[in-house]
């Protein structure tokens, strides 16, 4: 399997750092980071990652708006998006699914488990 490239969009620097470390360690994937919706959209267009991890609650442009923007752009519409959210209520999950996101990962998470969770959602095969 070729090395995957993951973009994480989260306004918390700590989360970015920890996710980057965990994913690199567990799977050796490349991790790109962005601290806002706008920055994330630009990075996604320029870098075309294999998956985007998107925090739902962010100031200015939240995850839902960011996702809609990504979907409307031909360069990024094909990139699978996984929401990172602390809210696990089924109502919101359904709302996310209707939006067309590939999946939802709930916070807090152990970053080492992220590659497995991502692979499971996107049906990637993950070397053990």
């Amino acid at each position, binding site marked *: 399997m070729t090395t995957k490239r993951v973009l994480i969009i989260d*306004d*918390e620097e*700590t*989360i970015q*750092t*920890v996710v980057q*470390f*965990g994913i690199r*360690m*567990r799977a050796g994937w490349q991790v790109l980071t962005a601290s806002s919706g706008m920055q994330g959209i630009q990075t996604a267009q320029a870098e075309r990652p294999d998956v985007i991890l998107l925090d739902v*609650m962010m*100031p200015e442009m939240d995850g839902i708006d960011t996702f809609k923007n990504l979907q409307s752009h031909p360069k990024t519409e094909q990139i699978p998006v996984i929401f990172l959210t*602390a809210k*696990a209520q089924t109502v919101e999950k359904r709302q996310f699914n209707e939006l067309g996101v590939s999946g*939802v*990962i*709930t*916070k*807090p*998470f*152990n*970053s*080492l*488990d992220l590659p497995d*969770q991502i692979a*499971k959602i996107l049906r990637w095969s993950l070397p*053990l």
Partner: protein
Amino acid sequence: MKILLVDDDEFLSDLLTRSLAAYHYVVDTVKDGEMGWTYGSTFDYDLIVLDIMLPRLDGISLCQRFRAEGYTTPILLLTAQDTSTAKVNGLDAGADDYVVKPFDVAELSARIRALLRRSSVSPFPLLTWGDLLLNPSSCEVTYNAKPLTLTTKEYELLELFMRESQHVFSTDEILGRLWSSEEFPSEATVRSHIRRVRHKLLTAGAPSDFIATVHGRGYFLKAADAAQQGTKSDRPTHPQAEYLAFLNETWLAQKAKILTQLTIFEEAIATLDQGTLSPSVQEKAYHAAHKLAGTLGTFGLSQAMTLARQLEQSFAPDSSQPKIIDLVTLLKALQQDLQNRHTLDSFGAIAIPQPSPDTSEQNTKVMIVDDDQHWLKTLPSLLKPWGFKITTLAEPQQFWTVLQSVTPDLLVLDVNMPDMNGFELCQALRHDPRWQRLPILFLSGLTDQSTQNHAFNLGADDYLCKPIMGVDLANRILNRLQRVRAWAT
């Protein structure tokens, strides 16, 4: 295997120590009953051999004292009296076997082996793990039919790992179990022995991580199948520990910043104190609390995370005006928790995500035995998010009936319960072939090390102290189940 010999006959002690050493047993010898009690209640032994005629405290009384204090270590009595009254007295005092002097040393060793076998998780005379085979009566060890030449300590190490193959042994524990109390070896000694055994196993064709390391916790025998596949040496065996180390560094670097973030809540509280909370300030505090909860959760700080979540709920846009007193209390508790947090807990405490439906433990049956009715009532709701099927039992008398009908995947036991204690149940389960492999977690208010060691000696898989958060308990249950599954596949 470590044996305590209590006998004032120096000649006999000497002879026994030497002949038992030939079977790779470590023997501590003391000469009177009181010393026997001191040693037996201070150190962990796999077996105690007692002479009946002893200065200061006789063997029968010592035996009774051990049993009255809850020690279940097998006890073998030595005596000159070959009458059935003497035998009955000894067995009634709680001894497990009885040998009359003068005795044949070979017979005594065989009886000792039988007693050790009975108390071990593995009831079979031969110990096996994957392609590794150890014969305690001949002291021969082979890997894939190739004989291994081992020193006494190397042999003992393997035997210990094989007898309690589900257990992770810390260096400290290995020192306590394999070295007599008169020696003062360092932890480095244990590590160098492990290194040499690994090397010998490797030469015989075993994988390099046949004895695996859990960083910061200890050593265990890796599940046979997984061990054979796991030949990639470039990948660390336990990235969890390295991840934890990284989290710790990040925590130290971020702690001050996180603490200053709390001023947002102080400001919001101050505004509220002056009159009403404006929607914009309330929303700012709400967002900040939400972010903070997520960050703290990532660090595995479940208690602080819960406090931040409560703050989040208090500031939620649709909630009524929060009470100042509640907010101040919450904030104080959070501040204190964070300030006192210098290092993060072991990786078992790293919060796991609320499970999504496809990963939850829908069909996992967990049985919990505890006489605290209130606690039993709260447990199912604490563990509800993980989807376990919980059976609670407050009356240990019905234990076996309920166990049979529930057939749980994992058992949580309290230590002190009326009529029957958790240790007895654990020991009985480990002697029953049907329940030998049932994962057992102790959950008790007793926090001392010797009680915990005792639980592990009886075959417990884990020991947790009350009070405990739901997330921590769920984590430990999940960890245990994962290991059992890794072993089974």
